[in-house]
Structure formats: structure tokens, C-alpha cells
């Protein structure tokens, strides 16, 4: 009888060929997917060339998504994207996404069924932890880890301790998944889950759709977490059915599994939340931030660029106009989201309000392109980081919120709630 294990420990044990694992143990796992983007893949490809193998381990289990500086913002980024494109062609990489089918990687790969429950996934992008929302173990690594994994299909891990977040009850009206995860990061800090797996459970989580669950797992890294994870239920199965290209495996934590700490959170205590510069943990209630005037609003990214996020923002801005002092940029995370927005009228709602609607890209989230801030400017963004200089000039500021507050702030010209719109 193996020791009682968490969902994370069970997935890792299964991929290491072991009956059981314990926190702190160093293991080597078989991988189900390795991914990289146009920033991290060029270095990974360079390092891959030094490993001494001709071909990647499995061209169907590598995803290359040029999403950060694409459509290419300048000559240098065009050269980086070209390296990725040529490698993908030479190696016959199945999951390479050219402009026209490309999306923000962590929205795209779940949508396309490339990731599934029970997988072990590494990605040369810190927000790889998003896929934990499907009941997978997924974690960000650097380019060199990705390079070696592309060659061998394996990676080493230290089995993380797990933190359990039990969130129960009904969320208040106007409170969404982004508020839940900002609340948690505000509570435990940007290294509150350092080296640890964050397991999210409770009736509040169960009531969320997949988009909200992905928003929560996406930002595990902002608390320093190695991964975020939510166990499979009917919502997950419904999402994966007809989508996931491989059979999936469901794991659940044993009732007596060990946790480094268990946090119990009452959903009623969570309010619409904004993270002030320059850390995602620097959170305050939106109701206390109304004096912050803004220059730009960004709705999009791997955190909040899915259809549900667009619908949430559109519902607030419908019939209103973006404040004359504000530029609003809406970036659907995938081509499918973009198309669905057109078919359901969301695109018209944003255009009528005076917002720009763009093709998918990570763009402004990391200060890449498509909405860079000048000195002293302030943006409200549904993205994931508000570090110094994150969206442009080092003296600019980023305030992180959910889509509804972002849309309301665009209309108001300052940070505010949907009900503040007259």
C-alpha cells in the first residue's frame, strides 16, 4: 500500500515509473508535452543542437507557439521567429502554430486539445502552470530544460510539497476567478508558494468553468508556485471531450494526503481586487482605488484572454464609450476566441465603445509591442504581472484586475467598479 499522496504526487509517481513519491525526492519523469515560444525556443533550439542527437524525441509531443513578439514587431524578432519556423519544419513538429492559427500558448493548447488531464508538461514559459486547471502537472522551465526535454522526452524534478487552498461558498456578484487568485496572492505573497504545488479545491472552484480555473492556475507562478492544480470533474470532462487528442488520466488526492499547509477561504470574503504596482501581491479592494487615473486598458493575455473573459468585459462596456483619456486594447487570446467574438457580436460591442481589437498576441503583457506605455503612464490590465517596466517605460505603472473592472475603468478613466458607471 503506497503512502497517501496528493494529486501532484500521484501524477509525478506515475510518470517516474514509481509506486510512490514524497516531497523533496529527486525524480526523472517521462513527459507528455514540451513547449516553447518565440522568445524561449531560439535558445532551446541552439542548445538542442549541442546535445548530440539529430531528431527530437517525438515531433507530436512538442509544441512551438510564436506568440510573444508576433506578428513580428521588428527585424530582430522576425529573425527569432524564423529560427523557430525553420526548426519546426526540419523536425516535422506537429504542433507548430503559424500566424493565422497562432494564439497565446496557454489559451491555445488547452483549446486545441494538446494538453489533457494527468499529463506531465514542461514549457519554456513561466505560465505553463495554467494546464493544472485540467488536472495535469504542468510547470515552467527555461530554454535549456526544454532543449534537453526535446531531445530525451524526460526531465528531472524535485517532488514539491503541496499547499491546499479550500475555497468554499458562492462568490459575490461582480467577483470572478481573477479576484480569487489575486486575493490568494495578496494573502500569501509572491513567494508564498515557493517551490510548492498549489492545489485548489472547494465548492467555489467546482462552480467555476474552465476559463476561470485556468485564470487561477495561470497565476500560481505569481505566488512562486511550481504548479497549480484542480482535480478533474464533470466540467473538465465536458471541456476535454471531443477536444483532447490523447486518452486522459484522472487522479485525485487521497483524503489523508499530507500538505505543507491548508488554507481555508470563505468566498464571501473575496471582493473585486486590484494589484497595485509593482508586485501581484500588492492587492487592494477596487473600491479603495478609485483615485487612480489611467491612460490605457488591456483586456487579454494567457490569464484573461478567453471567450468568457471577453464576454465579461463586453457585458460591462456595452452601450458605453471608452473615456477620451484612455486607449482600450482588446486582444482575444486565440483565433477561435476572435472568431467567436465576431459571431456573437462582442467585437461590435468593443468597436462601438471605441476600443481597438487585435489579432492574438502576448504583446503588451510583457511590454513586447501592441500597447507599450510611455513614461509615467498607467494601465489597468487583465494580465498577470505588474513589475517595474513590465508594459513599457520603467516609470509606467500596471494595475492588475479582472475583465469586468478593466472594462469599467476604461469607461470611467480611473480604476472603478461596473456599478460606478452612471
Amino acid at each position, binding site marked *: 500500500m503506497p503512502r497517501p499522496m496528493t494529486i501532484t504526487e500521484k501524477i509525478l509517481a506515475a510518470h517516474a515509473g514509481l509506486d510512490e513519491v514524497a516531497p523533496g525526492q*529527486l525524480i526523472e519523469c517521462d513527459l507528455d508535452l514540451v513547449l516553447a515560444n518565440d*522568445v*524561449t525556443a*531560439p*535558445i532551446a533550439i*541552439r*542548445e538542442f543542437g*549541442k*546535445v*548530440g*542527437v539529430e531528431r527530437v524525441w517525438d515531433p507530436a509531443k512538442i509544441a512551438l507557439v510564436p506568440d*510573444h*513578439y508576433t506578428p513580428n*514587431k*521588428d527585424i*530582430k*524578432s522576425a529573425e*527569432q521567429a524564423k529560427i523557430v519556423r525553420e526548426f519546426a519544419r526540419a523536425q516535422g513538429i506537429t504542433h507548430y502554430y503559424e500566424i493565422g492559427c497562432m494564439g497565446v500558448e496557454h489559451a491555445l493548447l488547452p483549446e486545441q486539445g494538446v494538453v489533457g488531464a494527468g499529463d506531465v508538461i514542461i*514549457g*519554456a*514559459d*513561466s505560465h*505553463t502552470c495554467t494546464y493544472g486547471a485540467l488536472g495535469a502537472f504542468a510547470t*515552467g*522551465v*527555461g*530554454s*535549456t*530544460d526544454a*532543449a*534537453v526535454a526535446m*531531445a*530525451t522526452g524526460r526531465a*528531472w524534478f524535485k517532488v514539491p510539497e503541496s499547499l491546499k487552498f479550500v475555497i468554499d461558498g458562492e462568490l459575490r456578484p461582480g467577483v470572478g476567478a481573477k479576484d480569487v487568485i489575486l486575493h490568494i496572492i495578496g494573502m500569501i505573497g*509572491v*513567494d508564498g508558494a*515557493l*517551490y510548492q504545488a498549489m492545489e485548489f479545491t472547494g465548492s467555489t472552484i467546482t462552480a467555476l468553468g474552465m476559463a476561470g480555473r485556468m485564470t487561477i492556475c495561470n497565476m500560481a*507562478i505569481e505566488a*512562486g508556485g*511550481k504548479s497549480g492544480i484542480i482535480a478533474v470533474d464533470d466540467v473538465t470532462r465536458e471541456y476535454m471531450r471531443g477536444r483532447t487528442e490523447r486518452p486522459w488520466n484522472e487522479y485525485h488526492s487521497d483524503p489523508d494526503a499530507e500538505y505543507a499547509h491548508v488554507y481555508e477561504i470563505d468566498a464571501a470574503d473575496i471582493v473585486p481586487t486590484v494589484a497595485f504596482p509593482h*508586485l501581484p501581491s500588492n492587492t487592494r479592494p477596487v473600491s479603495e482605488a478609485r483615485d487612480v487615473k489611467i491612460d490605457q486598458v488591456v483586456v487579454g493575455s494567457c490569464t484573461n484572454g478567453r471567450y468568457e473573459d471577453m464576454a465579461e468585459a463586453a457585458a460591462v462596456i456595452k452601450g458605453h464609450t471608452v473615456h477620451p483619456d484612455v486607449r482600450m486594447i482588446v486582444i482575444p487570446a486565440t483565433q477561435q476566441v476572435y472568431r467567436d467574438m465576431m459571431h456573437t457580436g462582442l467585437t461590435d460591442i468593443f468597436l462601438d465603445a471605441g476600443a481597438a481589437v487585435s489579432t492574438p498576441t502576448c504583446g503588451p503583457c*510583457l*511590454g*513586447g509591442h501592441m500597447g*507599450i506605455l510611455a513614461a509615467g503612464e498607467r494601465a489597468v490590465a487583465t494580465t498577470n*504581472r505588474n*513589475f*517595474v*517596466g*513590465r508594459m513599457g517605460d*520603467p516609470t509606467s505603472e500596471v494595475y492588475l484586475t479582472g475583465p469586468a473592472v478593466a472594462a469599467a475603468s476604461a469607461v470611467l478613466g480611473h480604476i472603478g467598479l461596473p456599478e460606478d458607471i452612471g
Partner: protein
Amino acid sequence: MQFSGTAHVYGRDVDTDVIIPARYLNTSDPDALALHCMEDLDPGFVKKVEPGDILVADENFGCGSSREHAPIAIKAAGVSVVIAKSFARIFYRNAINTGLPIMEAPEAVDGISDGDRVTVDADAGVITNETTGAVFSAQPFPPFIKDIIEGGGLVESTRKKAAR
């Protein structure tokens, strides 16, 4: 491995966006990245850092993005070793994999001021503040990670295994 240099001391949560801002990520050339190392935290860093100098920081050094450009920029700027109270986990892996020596040593961080002369004996895990004379110990790497470092980094150790 022995290192000796002037300490450059920073606070907690030094993120990869200030270590190497994303506006420079349209290249992966180490020398080009080094020109902008720490730019958004300390614009004067690149001018004052000398080959062999030592970066000292509080908790959670390297948090944020997975960009390997961060340890690459630090190494190419001439820094010999980073001493911190703790490292963000992706940065920790990246530093090991790319051959940037790092040490977790909370007491040493508290005992080193900006501009102090510091020597490090990484094999023995001993850090000496030559300016004050104080001596500190660092946590040793687990043997598995030491093997990767001594094997010349992850790619080199994998290449050796593949060639066997």
C-alpha cells in the same frame, strides 16, 4: 570553484523583468543582453560591475518569467556568483542549467553590504566578507544537482550520457 569580487546588494523579489527587460528579448545574444542587465532596477549596474563581481540579494531572487536570458545576462555582464536568501524556482533551474553559480545563504546576505569585498569557496560552501572579516556558510547543492554542475551543465551532461 573560487570567486572574489565586489558585492552589489539588492532587495527582495528581484524579478526577471528588471534583470533583463522584455524590450531586449528580441535577441538571445549574451553580449547584447549583458548591456542591459539590471537596467530597470539599477541603470548604473552595467557601468560599475567588474568581471568577477558578486550579486547579493534578499529573498525570491529571479521571480517572474522563465526567460533564460536573465541568468545569461548576469553571467555575460561579468558576475561570478549570485548569493541570495532564496531563489525563485525557474531561475534556480536556469542558473544551474546555464552554468551561473548561485548560493542560498541567508546569513551571508544579512552580513554583506554594498561595496564589500567578498570571496566565495563554492566547493566548501564558505563565504567570506573580506571587508568585515565575517565568515558564513552556504547550503550545499544536493548531489544530483552537483552532478549536473560538475558535468558542465545540463546539455553537456546529457550529451555525455547520449554518447555512452
